[in-house]
């Protein structure tokens, strides 16, 4: 990482800063208010500019939800190839982003654009939270259940889309899935004894879990057959339509993971598949887990499932059975 070894300015109001990996930064304003700040932007993953705008916005907003907060304001970040592309494309992207912001109850305060050979879009987002209710990746408790709110496999399917091999149906499914806000999931979990939360993005499920258990007093066990996934992803994985990021994720974290050989190779892949605007991974007290899953399903997150639990051993490791 580029910042490694550099001195990071900080002060006593920083609740979540650069010292450990988390979804967003949190800064205390007063005893009952802290702000959450996050930024994310990327190159197009679907061909339709309007949907790309929605997905990029949903993805950027997600980090605020993953901290347990409510997003309030946003700024646009745009890199656009003015010479090669028509302005109408940019307008559709921005319209997609604005529609997502409206849905999330977020106001747009400004933004910045540069001319670039490669199109990129995203948001910088600020959210509010009570300083005592910040959900980091760290406060797991033994016996907690892990709940995932969206199925995995978008990285593999996006690779198939890039290769022109994905069907129209699956493109639509995955586009809507990536554009879906994590707002309702965040709202529902607010009423439950949730101890930690993150959203599943580029490092894949096991990559983000690794950040949760790394250097901690806990391990986690994941039951592979309970993890919700897009069945088409298995098919494309078998055909070799696997994004390079997946192999990188596995290489980076496999030393922390014990996967039982009985877990299907392609399911193992999907557990490392980089997700775009993935679901929330919620760590909740055992006795509330079933009820929380039911509530999330009622809210339309119908693939939500309990996928594993927090253990006292093996510390700092992930066991997949």
């Amino acid at each position: 990482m580029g910042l490694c070894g550099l001195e990071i300015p900080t002060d006593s109001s920083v609740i979540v800063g650069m010292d450990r990996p988390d979804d967003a930064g949190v800064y205390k304003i007063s005893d009952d208010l802290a702000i959450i700040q996050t930024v994310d932007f990327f190159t197009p993953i679907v061909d339709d500019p309007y949907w790309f705008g929605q997905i990029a916005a949903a993805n950027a907003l997600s980090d605020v939800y993953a901290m347990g907060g409510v997003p309030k304001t946003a700024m646009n970040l745009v890199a656009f190839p003015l010479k090669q592309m028509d302005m109408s494309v940019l307008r559709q992207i921005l319209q997609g982003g604005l529609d997502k912001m409206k849905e999330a109850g977020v106001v747009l305060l400004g933004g910045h654009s540069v001319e670039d050979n490669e199109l990129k879009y995203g948001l910088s987002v600020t959210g509010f939270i009570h300083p005592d209710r910040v959900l980091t990746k760290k406060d797991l408790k033994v016996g907690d259940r892990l709940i995932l709110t969206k199925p995995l496999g978008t990285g593999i399917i996006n690779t198939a889309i890039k290769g022109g091999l994905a069907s129209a149906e699956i493109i639509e499914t995955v586009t809507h899935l990536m554009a879906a806000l994590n707002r309702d999931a965040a709202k529902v979990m607010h009423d439950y004894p949730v101890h930690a939360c993150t959203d599943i993005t580029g490092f894949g499920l096991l990559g983000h879990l690794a950040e949760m258990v790394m250097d901690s007093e806990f391990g986690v066990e994941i039951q592979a057959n309970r993890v919700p996934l897009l069945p088409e992803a298995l098919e494309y994985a078998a055909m070799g339509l696997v994004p390079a990021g997946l192999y990188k994720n596995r290489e980076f974290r496999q030393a922390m993971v014990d996967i039982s050989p009985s877990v299907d190779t392609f399911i193992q892949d999907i557990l490392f598949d980089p997700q775009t605007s993935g679901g929330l991974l919620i760590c909740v007290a055992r006795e509330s887990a079933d009820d929380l899953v039911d509530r999330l399903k009622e809210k339309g997150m119908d693939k939500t499932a309990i996928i594993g639990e927090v253990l006292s051993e093996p510390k700092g490791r992930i066991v997949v059975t």
Partner: protein
Amino acid sequence: METLNCRGLACPQPVLRTKHFVESNPQAPKFTVVVDNAASAQNVVRFLESRGFSASLHQEGTDFEIKAVKSDESRGEAPGKEEAKSSEKMLVLVTKSTMGSGDDVLGEGLMFNFLNTLDEMGEVLWRLVFLNSGVKLTIEGARTLPAIQQLEAQGVSVLVCGTCLTHFNLLEQKRVGETTNMLDIVTSLQLADKVISV
């Protein structure tokens, strides 16, 4: 032997080039694909295997060479994943919730171990059929459930006797497999190359 140069290409391009090559040269028994990154190399190997080729991978400096040879049994049409499986079909008929007779506590443990080890049969394992008290192994809370779900996720077909579930009043609690009737069970026994009854 033809060589397909995919140097400088990122995923999924090498797989797409290989796919195009295989489809436009259906008679080519042997060819080589060259890529310059590990992810593409693994993906090309996978793709070739899914199309019935055996693929061997060698690294030469910064290049990865994949030698593809058409497997004998799959000459001609490219088979899908299903057809690539061994043709022998093994059916395991589970007629009770415990294994063996003598002690039911022991029998229950043995059944748990049996179902968790069944995976070792490999790809010949085609179908599991649960009958009589065997259906209790497939319900919510059963210790054996994860193993059966795992087998199902790997492509093993699982049939559970509907009459038996109804008899034990467990229809709602079944969590794996397809609820089935005697006609399906009889047909399955006939289709299988080998039946193992436990």
